[in-house]
């Protein structure tokens, strides 16, 4: 007779692979009828007695116990019947809700653990990304040195050009100075000569000449005024 014991399919750390993780537990327990008798019993009797076999067996057993007074009916029977009725009613009514509540508690624990795991995974991936990015950044160091060298070259070049420019400016300044000096001297000579000539001319005007020129001017003015009055 092969009794199928529940969970016999679950190996218990005896094979060579006992260090591997266990296969998951079955989601629900074995099927039972009336909360007491496993389904396998009915299957076991089915080939010989069909569907009604176990029920007949059960009924017969109960009647046998009652009639032979192996089980005595007394006040405790009534109490047991009432208690059982209440219990069965309670379980049938509130069972699923309680089960859902318990499941929710479990779910929350698992969800928390899962969240921690996911965060760790994300953190690690971000860290890997960051490291890769830093490596990429580091590759750009040649830019820095190129910039520095460029700066140095530019500085040198600018200095050199400045020196050239300074030389040119200095030479030009000196030459221009010479030219300007010459011009100034020439101008001063001219001015002095003109002044001297003027002075000598003025000196040469005798008082006699002055009087003559003044009377001539007055005569001219009179003539002009006559002609002016005529036109006005």
């Amino acid at each position, binding site marked *: 007779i092969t009794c199928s014991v529940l969970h016999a399919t679950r190996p218990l750390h005896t094979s060579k692979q006992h260090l591997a993780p266990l296969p*998951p537990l079955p989601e629900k327990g074995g099927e039972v009828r009336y909360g007491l008798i496993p389904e396998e019993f009915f299957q076991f009797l089915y080939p010989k007695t069909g569907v009604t076999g176990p029920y007949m067996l059960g009924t017969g057993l109960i009647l046998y116990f009652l009639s032979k007074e192996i089980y005595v009916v007394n006040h405790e029977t009534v109490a047991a019947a009432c208690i059982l009725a209440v219990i069965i009613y309670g379980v049938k009514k509130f069972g699923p809700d309680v089960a859902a509540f318990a499941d929710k508690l479990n779910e929350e624990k698992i969800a928390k653990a899962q969240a921690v795991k996911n965060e760790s995974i994300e953190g690690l991936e971000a860290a890997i990304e960051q490291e890769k990015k830093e490596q990429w950044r580091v590759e750009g*160091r040649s830019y820095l040195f190129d910039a520095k060298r460029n700066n140095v070259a530019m500085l040198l070049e600018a200095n050199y050009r400045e020196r050239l420019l300074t030389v040119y400016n200095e030479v030009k300044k000196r030459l221009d100075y010479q030219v300007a000096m010459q011009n100034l001297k020439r101008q001063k000579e001219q001015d002095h000569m003109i002044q001297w000539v003027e002075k000598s001319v003025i000196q040469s005007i005798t008082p006699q000449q002055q009087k003559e020129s003044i009377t001539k001017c007055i005569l001219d003015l009179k003539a002009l005024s006559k002609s002016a009055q005529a036109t006005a």
Partner: protein
Amino acid sequence: MAGRRAAIKAIDWAAFAERVPPNQKAMFNALKTRSDALSARLAALPEKPPAIDWAYYKTAVAKAGMVDEFQKKFSALKIPEPVDTQTSKINAQEQEAAKSTAEYVQASKARIAQYEQELQKLRSMIPFEQMTLEDLHEAFPETRLDKEKYPYWPHKPIADL
């Protein structure tokens, strides 16, 4: 003239700016402003000073030999180029930087390998629904309760509950 000018490489400042980490942005900006100032100064200076018009001065200046003397001395004058003292230092810096970056990259790769390993461990974990408490303690050693340090329940300081 061959040795006079070290070639000024064109720098891609945009690409350079991308690679600067945020904590060094100030230094980068300082470098860029300095560089820009230098290049502006360089651009403002003419490459060659304008030629001096000797013919005009020869006719204008009265003193006879002066202009000729100036001209002779001017063309004979050789202006020394500024000496480059920094490029070798910069090259040395570059070598050092290459070395330190190689080290850093090495360390970085080691870190990446470590992260990858942890990632692998996390990814290949069995789902929580199938774990026993022992499995949980193996996967996350920090969940293990220290029964030696705290022999009485709840095996951790009350503040941690």
